[in-house]
């Protein structure tokens, strides 16, 4: 029940002998306060909470044995029943009576059955009211919306100024009488006119709704609560923008659109944000008599989401969110990202913790990179290594030849990981220019970069690198390298040299050094064997067969593997 009472006083009937011992009511209220606290501290499935509710419910039993309803008068610090205080709390701001009192509730009346179906609802409301901000609904609205059947309350409406009474005294003096003749004349006069309602027009049966009409209304109400009102508002304000040419109105609406987008973002309405951004584009194209300034201002709205700060905020909140919005909504939103978002997206692709979000952002990165190669190439030189790395990766994946020049610069970067990525990217681009730049990689200070580079040469059959490889094989530096690097260089050489390289490799594999000794150590000889395997000619096989009885296990194994690969 919601009812107002005069603000002056609530009449409290004093009763000498209450129908129930006040101690029972006091106990129930004590347990109610405990249940409020339990509701605040524990989840509904927590045994502590369940126990508190159970005790509260049980405390009503002896009360309902004697009465059917329990009216409690609410004061600032107390609940009163039957004229006496049955609950009081010292701290006003924290007290349960105050929660009710401050919003105007002056009496609450619990009815039999309240404890079973509605007590928990009340606990929830009390908690909401305690935490409510000034913008939130007050306790009265919460109680009203909850529509309790077994909890009634009376309140004074604190927010209402005393309205001037609607009173007939304010009206003019009514007439004392009317002239019967006037009535009769008017009846006669209008009988022939339209004053008399034609009841045929209003055959009552015409106004009963048939099943089809009832279903229509029902479906309309359903639709009212199913449609996305926010999307409707986006359409509305952009319709206003397009049709109203007044600059002040356009300014006001574009501000609203801007703020609304932020509001929608914070509310997680990503699909609607995407819709808004799309429609903003349409509005800027279609709006009647739009000026360049107005168009620019409108066009800036989508850019705001793509700005690094805004987009970082969004991605961070998504990454931290326990429940990701539907994939379709996010994809729709990401589709609206602009070129300026590319750097931020690249920066976040590597950072994301959420494994479901990552592929969606990867998709967005792919789309943005494909359609904005200029920006992509620029980002290769980003000072943010994560961004540069992703840009390098994407440039390679897209075989962006325009990226070769910035990648050449990256080949001199201090960060070996970037140089390594650049090698891969250049390899993927695979153009003569890209491979030429790649030659730098053979002299790189980082072993992995060098290894990758020579492997790329092998894979790409890049013969211009042969000279460099031969020099490396002949040189002393490679002798100091680890087996993997040696192997990579020799194999690359073998892949590119053809029969012309056999003498050099034969010399390394089988060349004699001092007395009964070999010229090269076993590792280098084994690498030469593997390189001969890569040459894959009968001449190379002949050389390998000669070493098939080699005593050095490492060399013999390498020869054997090389031969078997050739056979295969």
């Amino acid at each position: 029940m919601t009812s107002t009472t005069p603000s002056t006083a609530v009449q409290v009937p004093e009763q000498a002998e209450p129908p129930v011992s006040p101690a029972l009511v006091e106990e129930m209220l004590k347990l109610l306060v405990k249940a409020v606290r339990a509701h605040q501290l524990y989840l509904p499935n927590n045994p502590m909470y369940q126990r508190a509710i159970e005790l509260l419910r049980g405390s009503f039993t002896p009360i309902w044995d004697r009465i059917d309803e329990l009216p409690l008068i609410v004061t600032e610090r107390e609940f009163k029943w039957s004229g006496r205080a049955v609950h009081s709390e010292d701290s006003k701001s924290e007290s349960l009576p105050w929660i009710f009192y401050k919003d105007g509730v002056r009496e609450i009346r619990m009815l039999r059955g309240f404890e079973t179906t509605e007590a928990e609802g009340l606990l929830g409301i009390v908690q909401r009211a305690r935490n409510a901000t000034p913008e939130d609904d007050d306790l009265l609205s919460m109680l009203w919306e909850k529509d309790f059947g077994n909890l009634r309350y009376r309140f004074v409406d604190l927010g209402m100024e005393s309205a001037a009474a609607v009173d007939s005294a304010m009206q003019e003096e009514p007439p004392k009488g009317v002239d019967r003749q006037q009535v009769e004349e008017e009846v006669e006069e209008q009988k022939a006119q339209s004053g008399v309602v034609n009841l045929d027009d209003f055959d009552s049966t015409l106004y009963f709704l048939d099943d089809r009409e009832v279903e229509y209304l029902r479906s309309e109400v359903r639709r009212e609560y199913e449609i996305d009102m926010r999307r409707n508002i986006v359409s509305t304000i952009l319709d206003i923008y397009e049709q109203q040419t007044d600059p002040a109105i356009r300014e006001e609406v574009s501000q609203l659109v801007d703020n609304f987008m932020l509001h929608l973002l914070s509310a997680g309405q990503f699909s609607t944000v995407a819709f808004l951004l799309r429609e903003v584009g349409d509005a800027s194209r279609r709006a009647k008599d739009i000026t360049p300034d107005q168009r620019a201002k409108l066009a800036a709205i989508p850019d705001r989401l793509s700005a690094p700060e805004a987009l970082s905020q969004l991605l961070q909140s998504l990454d931290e969110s326990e429940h990701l919005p539907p994939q379709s909504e996010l994809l729709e939103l990401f589709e609206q990202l602009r070129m300026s978002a590319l750097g931020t997206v690249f920066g976040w692709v590597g950072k994301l913790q959420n494994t479901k979000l990552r592929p969606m952002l990867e998709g967005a990165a792919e789309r943005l990179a494909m359609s904005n190669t200029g920006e992509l190439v620029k980002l290769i030189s980003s000072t943010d290594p994560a961004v540069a790395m992703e840009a390098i990766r994407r440039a390679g994946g897209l075989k962006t030849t325009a990226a070769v020049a910035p990648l050449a610069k990256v080949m001199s970067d201090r960060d070996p990981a970037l140089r390594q990525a650049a090698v891969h990217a250049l390899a993927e681009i695979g153009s003569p220019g890209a491979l030429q730049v790649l030659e730098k990689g053979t002299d790189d200070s980082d072993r992995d970069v060098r290894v990758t580079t020579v492997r790329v040469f092998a894979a790409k059959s890049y013969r211009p690198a042969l000279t460099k490889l031969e020099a490396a094989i002949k040189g002393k530096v490679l002798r100091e390298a680890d087996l993997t690097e040696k192997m990579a260089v020799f194999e690359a050489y073998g892949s590119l040299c053809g029969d012309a390289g056999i003498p050099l490799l034969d010399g390394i594999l089988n060349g004699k050094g001092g007395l009964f000794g070999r010229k090269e150590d076993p590792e280098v000889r084994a690498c030469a064997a593997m390189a001969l395997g890569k040459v894959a000619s009968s001449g190379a096989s002949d050389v390998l067969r000669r070493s098939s009885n080699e005593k050095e296990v490492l060399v013999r194994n390498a020869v054997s593997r090389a031969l078997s690969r050739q056979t295969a």
Partner: protein
Amino acid sequence: MTQTKTPSRASVAMASFSEMGGDSYIRRSGRTFILAFYGALRAVKLYPVENAAVTKSLDELALVAGEIIRHEHELEVRVSGEFIFLNSTRLRLDLENYASFSHILSVFRGASIGVLTVHEGPAARDWLVFVSALQASTREGTPQARFHQILGKLEQTGVRGFEIGPPNESDENEFHEKAKEAAKRTYAQSVTVTKDLINSVRMGKGANIKKIKRVVQSIVDQILNEETSLVGLTTIRDYDEYTFTHSVNVCIISVALGRRLGLTKLQLYDLGLAALFHDIGKSRVPLEVLNKSTGLSDDEWRQIASHPWLGVLALFGVRGQQELPYRSMVVAYEHHMKADLTGYPRSIRPRVQSIFSKIVSVADGFDAATSRRAYQTIPLSPADVLKEMRDNPRRGMDPVVVKAFINMLGVYPVGTFVVLDSFELAIVHAANPNAEKMSRPIVRIVSDDRGTILQPGLLYDLAQQDASGSYVKTIIKTADPDRYGIRVSDYFL
């Protein structure tokens, strides 16, 4: 045992205190009972008693009633004003049961039954006797005579499971007086708050939505509790305060219509809020244009026609809420758009007018056309307005909503000033609860046949018949109360 019973004062007093609560057992089973009762009344009316449809409906009724008695240990149906109470709980009206409600109210009223208590045990054949007696009684005589006919029939057949009692007029009057006072308070507060809202927006200040919410909640409570008093107050069409009273009137009429369409309490609240806000855009139209009585230039009309979209912009600035009032924005924007979108403002993007906009559009159109305002010094009669809404497709109103609206208001809407065939003057107080008698509303006779003005007047149900079955009084025409110096709203205050 068959005897008469007077409704308890306690249970009637609950009427003013009781409110729509959670969907308790009694509400759910009460609805089922009302539908079963209605089904039985219809079956008995349409078919011979041995027909299977009659047997089935009576079995169903006996079963439902027995189930309630087993669960609640009592079954008392009480009719008070426009409401049916089952074991002191007021039953909800909704789209699925409003016809049944209307019919049962009308049958009870026609037989002057205020309360029916069903004692444990009536079998289907007992119900047959009672329902037949009730059905037969509607055909002739005064309500009091019919009441005694039913009692006699029950005595004669030895059916003892039913106890009927007349309406308790003093409790009913007390209930109506309380409702009237509450309605006046609600109306006054609503106008004050609306004025504050519109003036705040006009001055560029934020409006306090909490107060607005509270008045809409009060209006919804009032409409759910006792509709007539508040709907009656919409006849206050204060020329000077038109913008404010109009918004409140549209809110009240919309909520009343929404209730008739079966909206839930919270949906009624959404609708009421949107209706109250529907003209908020006018707060951004210059007063000199709004108040101009004649000769509006094209530009001035354009300014007035801007109020729907200005309303949307204004609602972005309404403070004190976590979420923007989207539904209100949509209604403010669409309420002149017409169902086929040929109205204003023109819609560029695809749109379907919302049901709330359709409802508000009907309420707005009705209140505006029947009010005197700056550029309409002679208002139209409510009946003419209804006819126009119904017959003129260019008005663009949803025909089903209009149909339901006429069903709600009756042929003669509340506040219509009428002349009776007795040459008495009367004001329509409420539509007849029996929807089949929509041309016979409950009126307040404000002038007797000699022309003496009666204040506060006498309530009279035009469905009353004399012993021969003829109607005692009938409306012969609607009239302009100004011609008789009568102010309709005085009779609702």
